[in-house]
C-alpha cells in the first residue's frame, strides 16, 4: 500500500513532508500503524483521537524524538532520520511540557530559545513574538508567576519567535494540544498566528481535543489506524 508521488507536479504542489507507512510502538504496544499522509506548502493537518490514542506519540515520532517502529518520514525527499539537520532547521515542536525555566523571566526564556534556534534575540523581535500571544506586558515577570494559560502562551511564542533558518522553506510546526487552558481571545490569537505562518508557506500539524479551527486542514484519525496491526508486525519481523 506504499504511495509514490508523481514527480511531475508543479513545485508548490509537491509534498514537502511525506509520511510513509508510519507505525509507533510504546510500552510494548502498537499505537498506530500504516499511517500514510503528505503535506505541501501552506497545508495543515489535525491529529484526532480519543485520550491515549497516540496523538502526542505521533508528534514525537514526526519530530524525531521517538524512532518510528516502521515506515519513514521524508522532508524534501530526504529521510529525516538519515539527514536530520535540514529538517531540524525547519522544525519547531511544542509538546505537552511547556519547557519553561520557572526561575527566568518570560523574555529570558524566550531569548534562550531564540539563541538555541539561531533566531534574532533583540528585545524588539522577542516582544513582537510575545505580543502575538498577548504576553508582551508580562515580559519581565518570572515564569514561576504565570498562570496555566499564560505558560501555554509563552510556549507557543517559541515557534513564532524562531522562524525557519532553512532557506527554501517556511518550516514545520508540530503543536501538541496548543490550545489547552487557553481562553477564547488567546485561541483566536494562536489561530491567526498559524494562519499567518501558513500564508508564508509553513506547514502545521496540531493534535487537539480542545476547539481549534485550521481552515482546510486534513484530519488524521490516529485511533483509526491501529487496524492493520498484523501488517505492521510482519513488516517489522520480516
Amino acid at each position: 500500500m506504499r504511495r509514490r508521488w508523481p514527480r511531475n507536479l508543479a513545485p508548490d504542489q509537491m509534498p514537502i513532508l511525506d509520511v510513509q507507512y508510519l507505525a509507533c510502538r510504546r510500552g510494548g504496544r502498537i499505537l498506530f500503524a500504516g499511517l500514510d499522509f503528505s503535506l505541501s506548502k501552506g497545508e495543515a493537518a489535525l491529529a484526532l483521537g480519543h485520550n491515549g490514542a497516540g496523538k502526542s506519540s505521533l508528534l514525537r515520532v514526526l519530530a524525531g524524538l521517538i524512532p518510528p517502529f516502521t515506515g519513514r518520514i521524508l522532508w524534501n525527499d530526504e529521510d529525516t532520520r538519515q539527514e536530520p539537520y535540514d529538517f531540524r532547521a525547519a522544525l519547531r515542536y511544542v509538546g505537552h511540557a511547556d519547557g519553561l525555566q520557572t526561575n527566568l523571566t518570560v523574555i529570558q526564556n524566550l531569548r534562550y530559545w531564540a539563541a538555541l534556534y539561531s533566531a534574532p534575540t533583540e528585545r524588539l523581535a522577542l516582544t513582537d513574538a510575545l505580543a502575538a500571544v498577548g504576553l508582551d506586558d508580562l515580559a519581565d515577570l518570572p515564569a514561576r508567576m504565570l498562570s496555566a494559560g499564560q505558560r501555554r502562551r509563552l510556549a507557543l511564542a517559541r515557534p513564532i519567535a524562531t522562524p525557519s533558518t532553512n532557506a527554501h522553506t517556511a518550516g514545520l510546526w508540530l503543536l501538541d494540544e496548543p490550545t489547552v487552558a487557553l481562553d477564547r481571545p488567546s485561541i483566536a490569537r494562536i489561530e491567526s498566528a498559524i494562519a499567518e505562518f501558513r500564508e508564508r508557506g509553513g506547514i502545521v500539524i496540531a493534535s487537539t481535543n480542545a476547539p481549534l479551527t485550521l481552515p482546510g486542514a486534513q484530519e488524521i484519525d490516529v485511533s483509526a489506524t491501529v487496524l492493520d496491526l498484523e501488517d505492521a508486525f510482519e513488516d517489522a519481523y520480516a
Partner: protein
Amino acid sequence: MTAFWATLARDLLIARREGGESLLAVIFFVLGAMLFPLGVGPEGSLLALMAAGVIWVMALLATLLALDRLFQADWRDGTLELMALAPDSLTLVVAAKCLAHWLVTGLPMVIAAPIMALLLNLPPEGWPALLATLLIGSPALSFIGAICAALIVGARRGGVLMTLLALPLYIPTLIFGAGAVQAAIGGFDASGHLAALAAITLAAAALCPWAAAAALRQAME
C-alpha cells in the same frame, strides 16, 4: 556554536537567579568537612594526617550532590527536547552545561579549599598541591559525572544510580588527587600525579560530552 554560548549564559543566569542553590556544593563541601573534627576528635595531629583525603572525598561527594540535577530538571520541564531538536548538535549544549556546572560548583570549591585546609590543619607543604590538584582535577568530576547524570535521566531511581555509577568512575581522580597532596606533604615530587590528573581531565572533556549527548538522545525516545 551559538547554542554553546547561549546555553552557558543561560545556565549561569539560572545559577545566579537560584542564588544559593548553585553554591549548594561548596557549602556542603565546607560544612561536611567541618563535621570531621567533631566526629573524629580534635587532635590536630590526626586531623593533619586525614586532611588531604577528607578534603578530596568531600569534593567528590559535593560534586555528586549537585550533579543529578544537571539534566533532570531540563528533562522534566521539556527543555531537553528543545535542545535535542535544535539545529546545533546536542554535544555542544551538553559541553556548555558541564562547563557551567563546573563554574558554579567546582570553581567555588577550589576557592574554598584554603579554608578547609585551615580548618583541618593541613600541613603548609600540602597547600599548593591541594589547590593545584583541585583546580586540575575537579573539571574531570563534572564531565565524568555528566555521563551518569545523562544515563539516569528519566530513571525511576535517580539518586541511587547516580552515586552507584559515578563513584567508581571517580576513584582514579581521587587517588591521584589525594596522592599528590600526600606526596607533597611527604616531601616527594607530585608532578607525576598532577600529569595523570591533567590527562584524566583532558580525556574526560573530550569524550564525556559526546557520550552524555548520546545517552540523552536515548533518554528521550
